[in-house]
């Protein structure tokens, strides 16, 4: 009640304003209108920023921001928002401390309406969600949009399952020695294990889960590990190793079946030091079976280095079909700050002429005229390429400060 006692100062000040400024009011009052995100478009991408601690939804055709979803302040990177298109909801795996950086910790899934982007609910988790530089595979929506899985790191590796229909936490599945969540069905997910296998977690109808199967070992976690940035191809996931070998694991049946690995590089390319690298460094256009891989020339230990080119592979034929050169990201970002007109002739030329500073991450839309979004994790600009020709169509400007991950909406 006492708290309620005001806006007094404001009201008084506004009164004064009227006298000072001589406002002549129009007949109609101005109206606060609610902005909504228009229904789904095929070329939308979430761009996550670890400094702003949010993910911005961009329209790849216009370069406009449609809205934003906040991540937690307490993590090193926000997890990508997960969009359940059928249910009309967006989920964010969040957590907060009662006193900002200390005090009681609460982990929760925030539920947003996908048109108004306002909070419509939350599910508090009894587990502690993990956090990492990219957090790729740390939160995922299973097929059918009923179950959401989050990855916990400590005190042991486990997966938490949330039932989105009932809005309840249902179970924690221990996956000791494994990491990541790779959805493979309505009640099935895969994870990568330190013994070189992929494991399968199966849920029952109530969302209680268990580790149901392991694949045969298919990679060496020390000598040539596969990265977490795998891509889904129907019932299969494709993982690529540090040394550039593609491993396809098919989860269609009970026990995962591993296909023979194939090389992304010829011997000549290998001796020329071409390697895969980056962070979210792989993307797949499922319909055309095109695999997009960021590549650079470097030595062992450069597996997180940005790459100046994207090599495109036909997954069915195991052969390269395209090489795309990337623009210069810092030129795209910074040149307008030195008075060079954004999108003008010089701006475009600078991006094209300068040898690319390289990309860490890319994603591709899944429609018939797909767009490839490519970013350098330390530059606030995302390049939009025609995924078929590699043509640099436009740049998503002012796209944050730093961050590695993107997600097709």
């Amino acid at each position, binding site marked *: 009640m006492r708290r309620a*006692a005001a806006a007094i100062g404001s009201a*008084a000040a*506004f009164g004064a304003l009227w006298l000072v400024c001589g406002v*002549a009011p129009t007949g109609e009052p101005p*109206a*606060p209108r609610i902005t909504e995100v228009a229904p789904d478009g095929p070329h939308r991408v979430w761009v996550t920023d670890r400094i702003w601690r949010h993910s911005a939804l961009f329209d790849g055709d216009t370069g406009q921001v449609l*809205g934003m979803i906040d991540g937690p302040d307490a993590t090193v990177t926000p997890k990508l928002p997960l969009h359940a298109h059928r249910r009309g909801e967006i989920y964010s795996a969040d957590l907060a401390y009662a006193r900002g950086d200390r005090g009681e910790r609460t982990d929760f899934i925030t539920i947003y309406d996908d*048109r108004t*982007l*306002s909070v419509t609910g939350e599910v508090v988790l009894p587990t502690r969600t993990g956090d990492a530089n990219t957090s790729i595979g740390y939160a995922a929506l299973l097929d059918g949009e009923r179950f959401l899985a989050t990855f916990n790191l400590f005190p042991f590796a486990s997966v938490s399952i949330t039932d989105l229909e009932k809005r309840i936490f249902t179970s924690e599945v221990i996956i000791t020695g494994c990491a990541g969540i790779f959805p493979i069905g309505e009640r099935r997910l895969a994870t990568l294990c330190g013994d070189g296998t992929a494991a399968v977690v199966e849920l029952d109808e109530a969302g209680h889960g268990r580790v149901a199967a392991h694949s045969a070992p298919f990679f060496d976690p020390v000598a040539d590990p596969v990265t977490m940035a795998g891509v889904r191809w129907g019932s299969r996931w494709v993982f690529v190793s540090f040394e550039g070998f593609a491993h396809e694991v098919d989860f269609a049946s009970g026990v995962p079946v591993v296909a023979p690995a194939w090389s992304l590089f010829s011997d000549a390319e290998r001796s020329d030091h071409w390697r895969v690298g980056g962070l979210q460094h792989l993307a797949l256009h499922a319909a055309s079976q095109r695999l997009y891989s960021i590549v650079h020339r470097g030595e062992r230990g450069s597996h997180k280095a940005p790459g100046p080119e994207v090599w495109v592979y036909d997954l069915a034929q195991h052969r390269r079909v395209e090489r795309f050169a990337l623009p210069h990201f810092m030129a795209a970002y910074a040149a307008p700050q030195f008075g060079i007109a954004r999108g003008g002739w010089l701006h475009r030329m600078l991006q094209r002429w300068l040898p690319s500073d390289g990309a860490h991450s890319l994603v591709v839309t899944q429609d018939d005229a797909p767009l490839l979004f490519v970013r350098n994790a330390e530059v606030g600009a995302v390049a939009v390429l025609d995924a078929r020709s590699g043509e640099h169509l436009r740049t998503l400007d002012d796209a944050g400060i730093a961050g590695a991950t993107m997600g097709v909406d």
Partner: protein
Amino acid sequence: MTEIDARIERAVRALARRTGRRAFLARLGALLTGAAGLPLLPVARSAAESPRAPGPDENIPGKPGDPTDCDYWRHCAMDGFACACCGGSASTCPPGAEKSPVGWVGSCHNPADGKDYIISYNDCCGKGWCGRCGCNRNEGERPDYHWVRNNDINWCVSAKSLVYHCSVAIVVGQATEPQPER
């Protein structure tokens, strides 16, 4: 302080003592309009109105200008991220952000029709920094004690959440005098 200001303040104080904040804000507009023939003030409007009433603030002849640009005519006392770059527009908050009931004002010159307009700047709140199209212009801006014209204050103090997202610039009406600088 002038006599009319003092009278308003006394009435507002009395009302405020008897009522909750939201109800207070909703009734403030009526009080001010009735009591002294004053215009509906921006402070009152935000809270009092139906959230979907159509607004006339774009009904100004001439080129509208680019609300993502810091040089946009309405931005003469802007400080913050332009909501038009964040999923909103010059006058609406982005999806999921709440417009602060209280904001600050400026008097900006519209080159399209040569007139000066009172602009109500409001912060959009409850989401973190938008981070796009940051803009700071200070025509007619005044220090914190003259807060109706202060753009330093995080006006999300008046919203449900103090967390600042971006700012809108809404045309309230035509000004019969330019802002103090001119």
